[in-house]
């Protein structure tokens, strides 16, 4: 009796490998998709947070500008001057050095102007 040859189911290694690669690729692609989607959500949240911070910084900047404007306004400076926090000394006429050409008095200025005594009030 002829010895019966043992039957083997051959595995097509190439095909198996191909399927493994395809499956792995699909799985990895899926994972990457999920990962990237989650990342996008996180980045979106981060973006919103940064936007909020930027708005806050701008707001703080605006508040600071308004405070500067208020503190350097004429009324505030005059109040401080009255309260004695600021000292101002008028510059005497003889202390002023002018670089521009002095205006000439035309011959029409024959009329002598007068001193206004009340102006010095």
């Amino acid at each position, binding site marked *: 009796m002829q010895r019966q040859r043992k039957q083997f189911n051959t595995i097509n290694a190439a095909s198996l490998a191909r399927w493994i690669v395809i499956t792995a690729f699909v799985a990895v692609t899926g994972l990457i998709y999920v990962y990237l989607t989650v990342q*996008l*959500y996180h*980045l*979106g*949240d981060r*973006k*919103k947070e940064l936007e909020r911070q930027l*708005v806050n910084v*701008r*707001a703080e900047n*605006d*508040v600071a*500008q*308004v405070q500067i*404007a*208020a503190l*350097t*306004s*004429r*009324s*505030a400076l*005059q109040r401080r001057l009255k309260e004695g926090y600021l000292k101002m000394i008028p510059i005497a*006429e003889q202390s*002023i050095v*002018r670089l*521009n050409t*002095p*205006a*000439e*008095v*035309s011959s*029409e*200025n024959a*009329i*002598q*102007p*007068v*001193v*206004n*005594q*009340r*102006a010095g*009030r």
Partner: protein
Amino acid sequence: MKWNSRIRCALVCLIFTGLFSVFSFRLVYLQMVKHDEYAGLAAEKHVYKQSIYAERGAILDANGEVLAHNVPGETIVADATHVNDAARLAPVLAETLGLPQNEVSEKLSGGRRYIVLKRQVPQATAVALREKLRTDNLRGVYFERDSTRVYPNGSMLCHVIGFTDFDHKGIQGIESSMEEYLHGQNGYRYVEHNRAGQEIVLYRGQERAPRDGYGVHLTVDLNLQNIVENEIDAAMREYRPQKATIILMRPQTGEILAMANRPNFDLKDRAEAKPEQMKNRAIIDMMEPGSTFKIVTAACALNEKKVRPDSVIFCENGLWNYGGRALHDHKPYGDMTVQDILIKSSNVGAAKLALSVGEQKFYEYIRRFGFGERTGIELPGEIPGVVHPPRAWSKISITRIPMGHEVGVTPLQMTLAMAAIANGGKLVTPRIVKSVTTADGQTVSTFTPTVLRQVISPETAQQIGSALRGVVSDRGTAAAAAVPGFTICGKTGTAQKVSPQGGYEHGKYVVSFSGYMPAERPEFVALVVLDDAKTKAELNYGGTVAAPIFSRIAEKAARYLDLEPHEELRKPLRATQVALTESARR
């Protein structure tokens, strides 16, 4: 027919095919035909159009000092469909925002998707509310960027700057007239919310960035404005007039350097202001100008070559009957030159000058000087004044109008007329806006000086100028307007106050002084007007009340503008030598 397996199989296939075809058709119908409708319904449920508010532009003076600015705040809004617990939310909102609880509850129960709870909420309050909502797990309340308009200088320049309403719309002054530039353009963004009401940034839809309002730079110099404000306050204390106006202008360009009115109001506390305090009297108040108007009369006669500056006119010894009515001078003047008519301010002389040119020509010159029409300044509510045409004149109008009666002018028009004299006869359009810029400083628009017309020839302007120098001298009516070291041209005015009921109010006067300095190269024109100054009757004149105010302003302005005084004019005559009580009356 035998129902063999093949037929049964075909039948099943057919049924499935039909079934799936129906499904497919339905799917195509829903996804393609009804796509927009259902997408809209879905979006309505989750998508929300978020407004991104543009910031209102700032108002700045000529040197870039801030006159009006914004302080950030937030607008608190609610979406009633997102509110998870209205009963708990209402008291939290009411307490934090300082609103009546029943009002908040009523708003939230309406089912509306956009409910404005409170505007202009300070940042600190908004942060506190946000924290409370988070800890109490309350939903449906949103925060939108907003701002509050602030005016750091309070009452200074209040009539010019104006103010905005609660919706940030300008309703007075520059805030109103430059609204187009200041308000900017709001942006928007379509956002989606999750169930918790939080934005899903990934699904942001269409978006348009806001464009902030442009900055408006005025021609007003706050330093000069401060000088004017201090002097007008001093005048209010000293003379307690009903109203007062001071204008400072650069004659060559028409730039308004300062403009102040009394009564005024505090822009920080504008809700308390009365309507009378809010009027910019420089452009909306009409007055009879009095003798300052004689510059128009003299300019007309000189420009028409009817007279020369040295032509002699008989002034009827101070009393002239014309048209059945007497016209008086304050002194019995006899023969006077045209120049002296201005220097001494003779009413009879002015009337005769007007008669020499005739009604029609005189009227034409009045109009050419800009009276009877709006000047076109960038401020709202300006009035044109009243100048009747000759056909409406009475027989004596030709003798009354030359001395500034029977015409209604605004202080700004009077300033412009004087500026035309200072400017060699050129009438310019007044400007209070210098330029418009973007937030990063790029110029959007520049308002260039505009010469409206050549009213009189440069020679005539020079002749008038020479006469006006004499007014501010020991011979003239405005000796008190003098500033040591400078030559000044000017004209006083004293007009009896017009009664709203008709006629004139006894013992009440509108006193004024209009002048420019230095006479050789005018740097500024100024007008001082005081309505019903409380002073002794013998001192209630333009030369004694308004002229000294001009002098003080001019002296300080000259220092600020670094105008060099003439050494030879440094030691002038003393004003006490001038008979103020007599010659300075008119």
